[in-house]
C-alpha cells in the first residue's frame, strides 16, 4: 500500500527543461490554474444577472465579497478600501487551494511550503512596501515602542525585528502544516478501511466522514486566519502606532 505521504509528491504532467532548470508543468500548477478558473467563473457567472434579490449563484460571490469587505472595513476603516482587491485575492487563492484539494483525486497546492511561503513572503513585501510608501523612512519607528528607555533600545529593537521576520514563517507554516496533517490523517483512516475489509472497514469510514467535515472547516478557517492576519499587518503598517 502507498504511504500516506504519497499524495504530496509533485508529478510533472508536461516536462519542460530549459537550461538545466526543471520548470515542468506539474499537477500542482494545474490545480493552481483550476483554482484561478473556478474563482473567476464563480465571481463572473454568479454576478451575471445582477438582480437585487440574489439567486443561489449570485449569493456565493455576494457572501464572499461581503465577508472580506466587512473584514477590511473593520480593520482598515473606510480608507482601507483600496487594499480590498489585494486582500480578496489572497483570500480566494488560499480558499480555493484548500477547498479544491478536498475533492478526491485532486491535489492541494497549499500543502507545499514553497507555495504558502511564497504567498506569505509576498504579503510581507507588500505590507512593508505600503508602510514605506505611506510613512517613508519613518516606517521603521515601528520597531521602537513609544516611551522606551534608550538603554533598552538595542535589545527591544532586535526582538521586534526578529518578531517581524518570524511572521511570514508562522503564516506559511501554519497553513502548510494544517493541510499536510489533515490530508495525511484522511489517508491513514482511509487505508484502515482498505486493510480491515468490508465488515470492520465501516468504522474507520465513519471516522473518516467526520474528519472530512473537520477538514472542510479547517480549510475555511485557515483561509480566514491567513486573510485576517494579512489585514492586521496592513493595518499596522498604515496606522503606525
Amino acid at each position, binding site marked *: 500500500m502507498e504511504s500516506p505521504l504519497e499524495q504530496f509528491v509533485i508529478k510533472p504532467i508536461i516536462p519542460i527543461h530549459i537550461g538545466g532548470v526543471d520548470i515542468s508543468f506539474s499537477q500542482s500548477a494545474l490545480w493552481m490554474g483550476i483554482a484561478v478558473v473556478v474563482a473567476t467563473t464563480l465571481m463572473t457567472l454568479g454576478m451575471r444577472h445582477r438582480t437585487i434579490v440574489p439567486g443561489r449563484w449570485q449569493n456565493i460571490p455576494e457572501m464572499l465579497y461581503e465577508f472580506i469587505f466587512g473584514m477590511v472595513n473593520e480593520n482598515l476603516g473606510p480608507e482601507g478600501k483600496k487594499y480590498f482587491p489585494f486582500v480578496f485575492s489572497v483570500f480566494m487563492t488560499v480558499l480555493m487551494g484548500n477547498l479544491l484539494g478536498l475533492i478526491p483525486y485532486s491535489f492541494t497546492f497549499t500543502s507545499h511550503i514553497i507555495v504558502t511561503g511564497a504567498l506569505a513572503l509576498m504579503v510581507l513585501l507588500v505590507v512593508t512596501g505600503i508602510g514605506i510608501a505611506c510613512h517613508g523612512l519613518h516606517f521603521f519607528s515601528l520597531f521602537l*515602542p513609544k516611551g522606551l528607555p534608550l538603554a533598552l533600545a538595542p*535589545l527591544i529593537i532586535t526582538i521586534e525585528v526578529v518578531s517581524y521576520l518570524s511572521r511570514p514563517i508562522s503564516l506559511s507554516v501554519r497553513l502548510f502544516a494544517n493541510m499536510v496533517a489533515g490530508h495525511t490523517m484522511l489517508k491513514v483512516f482511509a487505508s484502515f478501511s482498505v486493510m480491515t475489509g468490508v465488515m470492520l472497514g465501516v468504522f474507520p469510514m465513519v471516522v473518516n466522514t467526520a474528519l472530512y467535515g473537520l477538514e472542510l472547516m479547517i480549510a475555511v478557517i485557515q483561509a480566514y486566519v491567513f486573510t485576517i492576519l494579512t489585514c492586521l499587518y496592513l493595518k499596522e503598517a498604515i496606522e503606525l502606532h
Partner: protein
Amino acid sequence: MSRTPEELGQKIKKARERQDRRLFAGSKPTVGSKKTPSGMGNALRAGTDIVSAVSVGGFLGYWIDQWLGTKPFGMIIFFFLGSAAGLLSIYRSQTGQDYKIGFTKTSNEKTKTKGKE
C-alpha cells in the same frame, strides 16, 4: 410626484450617507470579528508563532556567525532573542493587542471611539 432634480439629488445623497454609516462607522459584522476568535484557530496560531520565532532567531544567529565568524555566540544570543520574540507575540495575541508591535493598545481604542462619533 413632481420632484425637482435638486430634491432627488438631496434624497440620493441622504440615502448614500445612510448606507455609508451602516457600512462603515462602527459596524459590527457578525463574521470576521476578532472579538470572538475561534479557540482552535487561536491555539494553532500560538503554537506556530513560538516555533517560527525561535527558528528565525536561531537561523539569524547562525547566519551572523557564518558572516562575522563569531561562532557560537551569535546563535546562543539570537536563540534567546527569538524565544523572547515568540513569547512576546503570543502575549500580544492573547491579550488582544492583535500582533501590534510595541505595547500600544491605542489602535483598538481609536477605532472604538471612531465608531461612537
